[in-house]
């Protein structure tokens, strides 16, 4: 009898063939899995690089913006205010001073100083956050009632100037929104500073808006960009007729 006619040989051949096909199948599965994993890994790396690039762009944009603001504020303060002061002095030293002109010049100096301070708050490094917040809100006290709630659990003032200036911009943007759209007569500011987190919640009793149907304006987009830059969290809650509340949360130690 020839070898191939033996049952033992045929069974062996079948076993080898089956094992081989199973191996081939396993390899195909493994190959597909590995390729998918590789694709996912590559995509992840790509999105990470893209995100990093966006973050860098954002950082550069914000830094450039701040630098430019500082330059304009400095020009206003040192150049324009200086010249206006000289004009005012000249007017005052005249034998027949024009009081109306002097008043107008004084008003212009004050406006220029306010714009300059808005553009670049003075002594930012040495001012604590609660004081800075009060400084931003105080000029609005003539229009709305402002209530502060400060919960300071961490006494050190180790926030970076960059953090402070971004928070100032966020608050300024929010106040502008409240003034322009909310028609509120009361603002509540909750500020909490702990070892790990810093949070600020600004609530108004204005007309509110529908966050779903209403599109985000440039102001809100700017706020989001700055929160993103500070790697913080931003939540806003609003209902028509029930006011708006905005909450910001950041990690405390940013220096």
């Amino acid at each position, binding site marked *: 009898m020839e*070898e191939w006619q033996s049952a033992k040989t045929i069974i062996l051949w079948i076993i080898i063939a089956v094992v*081989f096909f199973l191996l081939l199948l396993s390899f195909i599965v493994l190959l597909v899995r590995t390729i998918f994993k590789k694709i996912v890994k590559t995509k992840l790396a790509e999105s990470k690089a893209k995100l990093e690039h966006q973050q860098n762009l954002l950082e550069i944009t914000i830094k450039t913006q701040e630098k430019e603001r500082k330059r304009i504020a400095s020009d206003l303060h040192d150049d324009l205010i200086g010249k206006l002061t000289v004009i005012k002095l000249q007017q005052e030293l005249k034998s027949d001073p024009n009081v109306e002109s002097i008043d107008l010049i004084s008003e212009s100096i004050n406006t220029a100083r306010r714009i300059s301070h808005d553009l670049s708050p003075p002594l930012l490094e040495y001012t604590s956050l609660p004081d800075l917040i009060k400084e931003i809100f105080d000029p609005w006290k003539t229009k709305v009632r402002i209530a502060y709630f400060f919960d300071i659990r961490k006494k050190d003032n180790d926030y970076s100037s960059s953090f402070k200036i971004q928070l100032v911009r966020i608050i300024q943007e929010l106040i502008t929104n409240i003034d322009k759209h909310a028609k509120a007569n009361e603002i509540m500011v909750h500020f909490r500073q702990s070892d790990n987190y810093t949070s600020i919640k600004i609530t108004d009793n204005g007309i509110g808006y529908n966050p779903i149907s209403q599109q985000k304006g440039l102001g809100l987009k700017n706020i989001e960009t700055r929160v993103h830059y500070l790697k913080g969290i931003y939540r806003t809650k609003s209902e028509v007729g029930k006011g708006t509340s905005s909450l910001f949360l950041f990690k405390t130690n940013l220096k």
Partner: protein
Amino acid sequence: MGLFRYKITNRNGRLFLFYLTLSLTLDLMSRVIGQTTYNNLITFNVLSLIEILTFSIYYFNNIKTKRFVSILASIGIGYPLIEIALINTDNVVSFQSYSKVLVAFLIIIMSFYYILYQIKREQKIANQNLAFVIIAYFSLELIFLLPLNFLINYNSPFVLYIWFFRLSVNIFFYSYLIRFIWRNGKVQKQSYFGL
């Protein structure tokens, strides 16, 4: 083609050139042995040795973790040698060699390992098509030559079709290797400006 471009062919190209030359020599020798002794079955084992040596060297050169390839190569070289020593090629009725099957299986494993290794570590699989052609060719070889005793002894036109199909697969594989050698030479021959 390989001899013509020998100087500008890279290491892999030269290896396949030796493989094709040895295979051709073995083919001619098997005809001479067949004519003189009326039994050239031993050439299956010799061809297995040539194949395992060639593809072990190829993967040894192209995979950084050489231990795995070395183990497979040792098994692949050892088994045909044992079969050459023990098997009785004179008895055609009971002749059943598994050298080609085992060697094909080991080369397929090496190719799998190479592909997975390249996917995991590199951005692109080098000589990707060649690796898949090797897998396809040796898978068919494994399946064709598993029932070797049946193919030698069974007298039917069906068996002839199988041999003919195997011949076509061989021609395709050898043509692919010739193309590979030619392309390797072509790639390396660059102009003065590197174009």
